């Protein structure tokens, strides 16, 4: 009898195609691409069962660089296309990749419905708060006052918070990471992969050409410890260089407060514990913004829920149980018939 040797483990490199990557030098997308390729290798994902679906934009070129199945579709519609893929074959691992314009502006509706239906997709939103591919117009996540070719005097409309949006439409998995967090990002992506349902991951991504440094107030080395909090389920919400700061829940005002351990009698016992199944807490974490608060990264929210395509196919399995019913001739003759002699 032949003994089959176990297949060699794939490396990150095995998930890269032979196509030349065409993002601008220094673009945050390179780091995310590497992070995703690393993640798939670590997960021992099967390339033939993996599909990357994207819309339009810089981020949406992603599938061309992944040695998996890939579909570069049209602007904003990738969550809908991916829903169709998953409905046709629930066994596939489907990743959706897009930017803030693609997924929150032209495709906001589809993002909303893919999340609320809880289709089993990993939705990666590369948020750089700008339109890159169309040369620098402000986006729906741009801060008020963003100067761009279409807003020379500064943008005046309120930006949308991606994570709050996803929480608001009933998402079952909402996480955040950043292009430069090469250790953090794969861990978040692995959690997203393992979650059954729509896993929404907002990745802060620097656009070096049109919006360089827009996240530096919490990503630069000098401030990152004070301006980022990496949340872990069941762990106290601590941050700061010496983990000397933390978040407590002010129950009177129903909001989080930043405290320093040892000051005003605050001890570790007082620090709020992260509970990723608590949608209210997740919402408060998603709302936090520098300089008053650190930016919350990691899995903000994760709770089980029936995934859409599973439920669709459960109904079909129920209906097809009785194979005799699937008789086209019987269906053609259903209802009132008569015979002409």
């Amino acid at each position: 009898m032949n003994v089959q040797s176990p297949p060699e483990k794939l490396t990150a490199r095995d998930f890269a195609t032979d196509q030349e990557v065409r993002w601008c030098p220094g673009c945050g997308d390179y780091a995310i691409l590497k992070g995703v390729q690393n993640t798939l290798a670590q997960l021992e994902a099967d390339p033939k069962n993996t599909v990357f679906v994207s819309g339009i934009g810089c981020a949406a070129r992603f599938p061309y660089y992944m040695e998996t199945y890939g579909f570069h579709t049209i602007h904003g519609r990738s969550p809908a296309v991916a829903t169709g893929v998953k409905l046709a074959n629930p066994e596939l691992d489907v990743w959706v990749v897009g930017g803030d314009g693609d997924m929150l502006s032209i495709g906001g509706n589809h993002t909303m419905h893919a999340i609320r239906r809880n289709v089993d997709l990993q939705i990666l939103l590369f948020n750089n708060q700008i339109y890159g591919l169309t040369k620098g117009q402000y986006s729906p996540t741009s801060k008020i006052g963003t100067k761009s070719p279409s807003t020379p005097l500064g943008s005046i409309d309120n930006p949308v918070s991606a994570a709050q949006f996803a929480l608001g439409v009933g998402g079952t998995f909402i996480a955040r990471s950043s292009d430069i967090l090469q250790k953090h990002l794969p861990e978040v992506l692995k959690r997203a992969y393992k979650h059954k349902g729509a896993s929404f991951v907002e990745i802060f991504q620097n656009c070096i050409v049109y919006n360089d440094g827009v996240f530096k107030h919490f990503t630069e080395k000098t401030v990152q410890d004070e301006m980022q909090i990496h949340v872990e389920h069941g762990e106290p919400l601590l941050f700061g260089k010496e983990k000397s700061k933390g978040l407590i829940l002010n129950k009177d005002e129903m909001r989080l407060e930043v405290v320093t351990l040892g000051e005003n009698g605050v001890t570790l016992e007082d620090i709020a514990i992260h509970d990723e199944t608590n949608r209210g807490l997740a919402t408060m974490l998603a709302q936090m913004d520098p300089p008053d608060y650190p930016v919350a990264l990691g899995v903000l929210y994760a709770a089980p829920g029936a995934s859409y395509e599973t439920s669709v196919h459960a109904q079909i399995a129920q209906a097809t149980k009785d194979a005799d019913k699937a008789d086209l001739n019987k269906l053609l003759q259903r209802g009132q018939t008569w015979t002409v002699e």
Partner: protein
Amino acid sequence: MSEVAAVERPEENRQEVESAVVRFAGDSGDGMQLTGSHFTMTAAIAGNDLATFPDFPAEIRAPAGTTFGVSAFQINFGARKIMTSGDLLDVLVVMNPAALVTNLADVKPNGIVIADSGAFTARNLTKAGYEENPLEDSSLDGYRLVKIDMSRLTVEAVKEFGLSNKEALRSKNMWALGVVYWMYGRKRQASIDWLETKFAKNPDIAKANIAALNAGHAFGETAEMPAELGTYEVESATIEPGLYRTITGAESVSLGLLAGSLLADLKIAFCSYPITPASALLHQLARMKEFGVVTFQAEDEIAAAAAAIGASYAGSLGITSSSGPGIALKMEAIGLAIATELPLVVINSQRAGPSTGLPTKTEQSDLYQAVYGRNGDAPMPVISVSTPSDGYEVAIEAVRIATKYMTPVMVLTDGYITNASEPWLIPDAGDSERFDVEFRTDPENFQPFMRDDETLARPWVKPGTPDLMHRIGGIERSYDSGHISYDPENHQKMTDVRAAKVLGIANDIPEQTVEVGEAGAKLGVVGWGSTYGPINRAVNNMRDDGLDVAQIHLRYIWPLPRNLGELLGTFDQILVPEMNTGQLRTLLRDQYLLPAEGFNKVNGKPFLIGELEDAIRARLEK
């Protein structure tokens, strides 16, 4: 004329007529659609050929008694082949003044108008815009008017079942049906059986409806009806033997899509968004889950098209369905299916436009949209449905072309066909030729855009297949490899091959035949879609009158049949009747430089046979 009273009288000899057109019209809540469908079933069982046309308001619950709340159902039934739901009415049954004012113009001179006089109250008359009661003045002198207080008689007939007045009046439609059954000597049993089954859990409701039906019928038998009203006999038609059902266009297209998927050995992913008059397809397919049919009610038209494309990419038969405005929203996605060369079936149940237009009224004004309406040079096959039962074959053909040529296919049907019904000789599913799809699994020399020599189709690969991982997308793809290519020569080559692939389908569809008459006639009448019935009858009638005219009816709009140019060249004149302002006419002129003339109308209603006859005569007698 005074109101008729129930007095015994003997059964008279029935007058034989070859065909008759009856319309039931009343308030949305009066159950006119149900009444019409009962009459249809009974006519079918009596062996008549028939065609029906429901006409209902856009509003779901329009205020009672208003003209915009009138719902009507028309049936043409006969001892001969019936081609349309009928030009003018022999009998109009009206349940209130609004139904009278909106439908009277369609009644033949001296036709029969049966009115529920009980509903002609001062309030209802005002709502319909009457200053005087038309049943009491001389305004209906040109018709044979029969006034019956159906409301009162229905309430009396169902008294024993202890229903409220409002509930009792719900049976008024059955009472009216009883009278018309009597007029045409129809049996009531099929309706009685239906009511007993339908209201099995509410026996009192069933009994009340049956009592009303019987009472209406008995009233006809015993009442002192005006002598000229008469009773009629419509003999059974000569119909091909076999098992029949009635079928609407929505039903035939749905069944055809399912049949096509089974012939291709594919699972359906039907992705749609509700829109009048296309929603019926979603409803039909949602009830076919036992065949593994996936239906997806998307968040919008675009998502529906996109999800269908995603499903096709993953190896299902993606289908999306809508009406004109929704199809417009889908067009960018359809362009993606053209670019990535994925199969997709798009059903367009056309309605009157532009914009929202007239959602419940029919038109065939999306031919331009189907053939031309996309950005870029984006050819796709377009085929059309001609009659309510034709949708079965057309839908199968759409699936065949989409899967064999890896292309989206648009099926043009319309609001008339979708809702209208006709008898259908039920086919045997096993008689259709199979066209099983073969997915590519062989990695040897695989390239995602390498084409079949004959069809020019690219291979279809299901994600999940080992060693065939590849990427596709809407950016121009390199010939064979499918990699992104901005090379100008490559774009020329790809544009040419996309066009050639679609045009090549002309070699895989039947040559165009002449439906009625012969090539070389003085006048060729060229139609497509739901104008088939009236054109067919008009051409036959004109030929009986000795005119040299022929009918050509197209199923294939794009590509056109390969012999069409030559065939059309044999006619002295070409007339193209369409329910639009001349879209096929433009296409024919464009393709063949022929002096085709149009005969066009867009009033939301199908062509009348009479107006087509006049148009044919005008061309041949000028």
